[in-house]
């Protein structure tokens, strides 16, 4: 099961007052940690200069703020990383779309498998 931590703070809209949370978590949920580590590891392995990623993140933040989007910091980070992986030709857009669908289907399937008290049919 997904271990996401529900945390209203991460979804708080930007306010004029500076939001401050005592004892804030480093990451609000496992995927945030994962996308962070992924970007850093890729850079470490020489896939791209950090400046490239940093610029992409800056662009995502700027466009999200301009559009008044309530996306979180790491959602923007993820978009930036997606952009860099295709922009730097590390991955093709098509394969990301395909793999995303596979992962989604797998997640849906696993979800459906829980909590049933009657048998259902698998089609392999």
């Amino acid at each position, binding site marked *: 099961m997904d271990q996401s931590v529900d945390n209203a703070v*991460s979804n708080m809209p*930007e306010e004029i007052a*500076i939001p401050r949370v005592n004892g804030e978590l480093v990451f609000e949920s496992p995927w945030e940690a*994962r996308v962070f580590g*992924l970007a850093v590891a890729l850079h470490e392995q020489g896939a791209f200069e950090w400046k490239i990623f*940093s610029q992409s993140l800056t662009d995502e933040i700027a466009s999200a703020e301009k559009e008044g989007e309530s996306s979180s*910091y790491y959602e923007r980070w993820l978009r930036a990383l997606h952009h860099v992986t295709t922009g730097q030709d590390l991955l093709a857009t098509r394969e990301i779309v395909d*793999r995303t669908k596979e992962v989604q289907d797998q997640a849906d399937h696993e979800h459906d498998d829980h909590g049933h008290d009657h048998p259902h049919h698998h089609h392999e």
Partner: protein
Amino acid sequence: MANEDPAILTKALESLLVEKGLVTSGRIDEIVKSYEEDIGPMRGAQVVAKAWVDPEYKARLLVDGRSAIAEFGFTDPHGAELVVTENTDDVHNMVVCTLCSCYPWAVLGLPPAWYKSFAYRSRAVSEPRTVLKEFGLELPESTEVRVLDSNSDIRYMVLPKRPAGTDGMSEEELAGIVTRDSMIGVGEAVCP
């Protein structure tokens, strides 16, 4: 892309990149763990404490921050410069990254949510003294407030003023009174 569950897309990206041999999941695990558990403001606090007790170290730190923190084995994963600026009675330095979230990971770990917020990023530049007041820090008018805008090439760390009444403290005890906020420049180190 806008409607996708971020956890799903993240998993898809990781699995593809691992398959292509561009990263390993194990290394991602290590990186996450290190930033969750090991790399944090205690590192910066050690640097500050040493600078307070050792004038030659302080001099090295102010000239070449990156080399000076490397003496502790602390290195920035992006190869960015680290500039350490000293707070005095005359000048109070405050750090921000107006465009994204550039931050001296090597000595402070990952930035807090407020540092990355639109509110801080814009107001630190437009009304720094008001922002400092909200953090509980009110400076005399005679103290100049300087706002340093970080970027991917240069990260900043503040060397806070050593508080009065700390003469008898050991380096370790001194590290214990250095707060993260004082190294960002939105607070001061306080004698307990």
